[in-house]
């Protein structure tokens, strides 16, 4: 009997084609749409589940909708709100991928008699003698390796990324050739449970009791320049909509949750030479103990900057950039690459200098 694999199907074109490719490869494919956020958000809304179901019918595979709404709220959306309230800029997709698309989905696969999961992420996975090796997707514009940095080697042993070597155009062409309804579906936006990009509104709805209220906007010397309506409405590196006017351009350079302050400064104050990274994980079989050179990516839309990564034990590191790096925001991930190979990464804790 062929190997059973569970494919996380979002109802979009990528996971549709991922499922189709595994069917072609002869797997016994089970499609699962994870119902994560409430049906009012676009994320995994039941419309999307219906799209996924139509694709599954077309491919002739079993399909289920799995309810993870409560766990998603506990593990993803509430921590997302709490991070903003603590002055950080979170990326909920990383936790969602690790816990839901992989942990929970793999548990489900095992309950159904399988031992592997697949998704439509644009990342390449190679099985090497010393273990799995994770790489950027072949389509540089779609590459999603950044969001997968904290998958463990053990998890990677049970994951397939069928789209890793493909471009988005090839994926759409494949979907069209297969006659899938999702072939022309528009791209989904960055954070699925933030429908219109207004994350502050989402934070306010999730944690109405914990909102910080108004506070001071200060410059780096601590002089009060104005008032803000809550630090969760700001991210490091932001220039527009700060609400203080002046002759020179000002950026958010820091968020001080303890004093409920937004710190602004000139572009030159945004640069970091050295940053602390915590909860580091490595995809390498042997986590490094000596400093290593790497291209370090500090947010999704970032090409990566050369740096020296100095491990501090196995779970922390210091990243020292060759050139000052702009807008390194606590709460985002710093992900270490050797060429296109993902070595590991961690959460940005704060600027050292």
């Amino acid at each position, binding site marked *: 009997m062929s190997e059973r694999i569970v494919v996380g199907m979002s109802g979009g074109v990528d996971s549709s084609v991922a499922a189709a490719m595994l069917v072609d490869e002869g797997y016994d494919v089970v499609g699962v749409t994870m119902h994560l956020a409430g049906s009012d958000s676009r994320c995994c809304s039941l419309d999307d589940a219906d799209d996924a179901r139509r694709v599954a019918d077309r491919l002739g595979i079993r399909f*289920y909708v799995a309810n993870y709404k409560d766990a998603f709220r506990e593990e993803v959306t509430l921590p997302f709100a709490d991070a903003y309230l603590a002055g950080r800029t979170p990326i909920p997709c990383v936790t969602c991928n690790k816990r839901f698309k992989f942990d929970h989905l793999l*548990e489900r696969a095992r*309950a159904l008699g399988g031992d592997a999961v697949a998704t439509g992420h644009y990342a390449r996975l190679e099985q090497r003698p010393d273990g799995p090796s994770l790489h950027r997707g072949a389509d540089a514009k779609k590459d999603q390796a950044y969001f997968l940095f904290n998958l463990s080697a053990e998890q990677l042993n049970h994951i397939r990324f069928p789209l890793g070597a493909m471009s988005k155009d090839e994926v759409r062409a494949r979907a069209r050739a297969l006659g899938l309804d999702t072939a022309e579906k528009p791209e989904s936006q960055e954070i699925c449970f933030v429908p219109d990009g207004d994350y502050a509104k989402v934070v306010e709805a999730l944690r109405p009791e914990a909102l910080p209220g108004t506070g001071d906007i200060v410059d780096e010397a601590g002089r009060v320049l104005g008032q803000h309506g809550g630090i969760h409405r700001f991210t490091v590196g932001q220039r527009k909509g700060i609400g203080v006017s002046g002759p020179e351009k000002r950026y958010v350079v820091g968020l001080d949750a303890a004093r409920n302050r937004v710190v602004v400064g000139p572009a030159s104050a945004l640069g970091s030479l050295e940053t602390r990274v915590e909860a580091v994980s490595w995809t390498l079989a042997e986590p490094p103990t000596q400093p290593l050179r790497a291209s370090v990516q500090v947010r999704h839309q970032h090409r990566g900057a050369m740096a020296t990564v100095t491990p501090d034990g196995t779970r922390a590191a210091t990243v020292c950039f060759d050139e000052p790096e702009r807008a390194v925001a606590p709460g985002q991930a710093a992900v270490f690459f050797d060429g296109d190979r993902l070595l590991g990464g961690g959460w940005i804790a704060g600027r050292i200098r």
Partner: protein
Amino acid sequence: MRIYLDHNATTPVREEVVTAMTQVLREHHGNPSSTHREGAMARRLMEDARSSVASLVGAFPRDIVFMGSATEANNTVLAHVLSNAGDAHVVTTSVEHPSVEEPLARAEATGRARVTRLAVDGDGMIDLAALEAALAEGADLVTTILANNETGTLQDVAAIGRVAEAAGVPFHVDATQAVGKVPVDVVAIGAQWLVGSAHKFNGPKGAGFLVARSGALQPLVHGGPQEKRQRGGTENLAGIVGLGKACMLAETEFASRAEHVRHLRDRLWAGIEKRVPAVVRNGAAERVLPNTLNVEFQDTAGEILLEALDGEGVAVSVGAACHSGSIDPSRVLLAMGRSAEQARGCLRFSVGPSNTEAEIDQVLEWLPSLVARVRAVPV
């Protein structure tokens, strides 16, 4: 080979029903409202079916109104009662089917009705004393489900009917899950309105009916004079004939069907209890439908167990069939005092006349290892 144990969701259509329906589709295209011979033939087929339905539930044929579904029939009764009463008080239970609960919740939200939902005990039964107390303040309607769709729990509708009658309050019974499975006599129950649907007992989908014993109803669907102006729209003749045929079959095969499904259901429970650790049966054995077994597999995600069984070829359900496929804890089981975690582990097996002992034994063969596999998943 599939093993279908989800007869409370819907049932396979009996061959005799298919034959009767296809004959109508091929040979009798007349409109029952037409005067000519084709119309008269269609009318006769429809009235024969009406008699078969009436006979099954102990009503007069003139009291039977054909509807598109039990949901439509329930909605029609509730809309009728609520439009007649100014500020209506409706007494119901906390374990109703959505086709009763949702219209009541809407009426409540829009200020058209006050709704008293009687609590149920751990077996899903309401307390008659609580019903009497609720009616003491005056009410416009008592509405209860007869057989619960998720647990099979049978309310004591005859006793409820007596309490309602003593209080002078009309009584509506949603008997959708009971008709065709257990004897249902609308007069003995003392209900003014009673609802059923063909697809729950080997008839077609899209053919519900309403027994209306206390005069004309205001239509929910306005249109032509069909069904004595109680439901506009050209009748679904093939569906109605299928419904009639299913009623005839149910009436003649009643006793043997009940005995057969009870035997299989009891065999299934005995086997589960023996082979699978940490299981609890929901609903008191002597007060549930003969075909229904609702089991809590403790510390198990019921929806995943359902998927695992489906993969082996066994169709069961986690309570009510859900349109989206995404399942929240059962409202019915929560009302019966189960925790959300307990409710999550519950599966509904509902046996039908066409199931066999060999099928039950096959399920019992697979179940222990599947449950063990699913229990390995953290809930």
